[in-house]
Each structure stands twice: as structure tokens, then as C-alpha cells.
């Protein structure tokens, strides 16, 4: 029996999504923003090494520290999402696995961002 699909319907969805450039640029922008944020993070962690729970709480409670930590988490989760996505696109070829991995990356990054930001806010505003 002849195929009932039109030639157009057979090729729909097989081409480029046409938003690769914006993903590429936002990955680089996040990378640039990560440079000072990583430096802040590393210097802070070395400087506070071995501190007690109360001392860490007092450190995070400082407005500038809370804000920088939140920005760091939001920025690296964004960079991580597009970075891991690129790795999956290059090495995972079966459609099902690629879909599952993509969903896991997006949900995982959202979970990391949500939990971390909530924790920072809870420390910052907690009694």
C-alpha cells in the first residue's frame, strides 16, 4: 500500500531547531560570568576552611555573600545544563535515551538550583 504521509510531513522536525546560536552564546556568557564567581567561591572556601556551623551561618548571612552565592548557583546551573546537554547530544544517539537524559539534566539542574537557593535564603533570613 502506498505511503499516506505527504513528503512534507516526512521531513518535518528533522532539521535544525534554529536556536543553536542563542544556546551557544548563552553558554559562553555564563562561562564569562563564572570566572569571577568561581574565584569568589574558591577564595571564600579556602578562607573559611574548617569553620563551625555557627560561623558558616554568620558568613552566609552577610547580604553580599548571600547574593553572590545565589548568583553563583543560578549561573553555574545554567552553564551546567547547556554543557551537559551538549555532551548528551554528541554521544547519545538513540532517540529514547537522548530524550530521557535531556529531561534528567533539565530537572536535575532545576532541583539543584531550587534546593541551593532555598537553603541560602533560609540561612540568610533564618533566626
Amino acid at each position, binding site marked *: 500500500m502506498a505511503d499516506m504521509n505527504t513528503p512534507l510531513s516526512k521531513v518535518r522536525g528533522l532539521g535544525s531547531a534554529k536556536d543553536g546560536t542563542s544556546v551557544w552564546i548563552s553558554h559562553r556568557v555564563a562561562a564569562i560570568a563564572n570566572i569571577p564567581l568561581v574565584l569568589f567561591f574558591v577564595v571564600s572556601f579556602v578562607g573559611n576552611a574548617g569553620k563551625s556551623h555557627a560561623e558558616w551561618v554568620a558568613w552566609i548571612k552577610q547580604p553580599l555573600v548571600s547574593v553572590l552565592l545565589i548568583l553563583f548557583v543560578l549561573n553555574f546551573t545554567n552553564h551546567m545544563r547547556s554543557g551537559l546537554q551538549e555532551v548528551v547530544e554528541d554521544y547519545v544517539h538513540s532517540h529514547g535515551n537522548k530524550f530521557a537524559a535531556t529531561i534528567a539534566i533539565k530537572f536535575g539542574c532545576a532541583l*539543584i538550583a531550587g534546593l541551593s537557593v532555598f537553603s541560602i535564603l533560609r540561612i540568610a533570613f533564618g533566626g
Partner: protein
Amino acid sequence: MAQAKRPLSPHLQVYRFGAHMAVSIIHRITGSALAVGAILLTWWLVAIATGHEYFNMVQGMAGSMLGKLVLFGITFALMQHFASGIRHLFMDAGKLFDLKANTASAKFTFVFSTVMTLLIWVAAYKVTGAL
């Protein structure tokens, strides 16, 4: 219908493995490894928000031999990804493409990450007073 065997385009096997190839694949490996670091950072922040008892338990695990080994690995991954990431930004801007600069900058990322990782750990031990 028999088809003449066509020449294939050159692939990985025709290139000699060098620093530029190592830094490229290690950038991806360290990037993926840092996802583990992100999970641990989240856990640590949740621990502080939860309270001092739970925090002390997590700190105890981080301070164990295995914990320190993992954290040392993550420190190296972060510094290596940081250095090769900046190298990539230069390449995105069209720099570092001639053979000498490309190889030299690739090698430099490994020197940078090794030295920085050791410096960070020595400094952290100094801060805690263990050194």
C-alpha cells in the same frame, strides 16, 4: 548493485594524540565531573540550612579519607575546567589557533590546574591550622 569502495574522510585515528586533544576531551570530562561537585555543594548548603547536628555529620564525611579524595578531585576538575574554559573563550574569539600557541596554551592549562589545586589545599590546611 555493487558500489566502488569510496574513500572515507579522515577521522580521529589519523591524528597523533597531543596536548590539544587531551585538553579538549578533559574539558568535557571535568565539566561532567563538576556536576557531582554541584550536587555535593547543594547537599552542603542544605546541611547548613538544616542545623548544626546534620552539618557536623556532613562535615565529618567530607573530612574522611574518601571525602577528602573526592573533594581534591573536584578541586582539580574545577581548576582544569576553569583554565581550559578560558582557553576556549580565546579560541571562540579566534585566538590561539596557530599550532605553537595552541599546544602551549593546552599544556599551560594542566600546569595551572595542578599548581592551583595544590595551592588551594595547602592554603586551606594553613587556614585550619593543620599545617
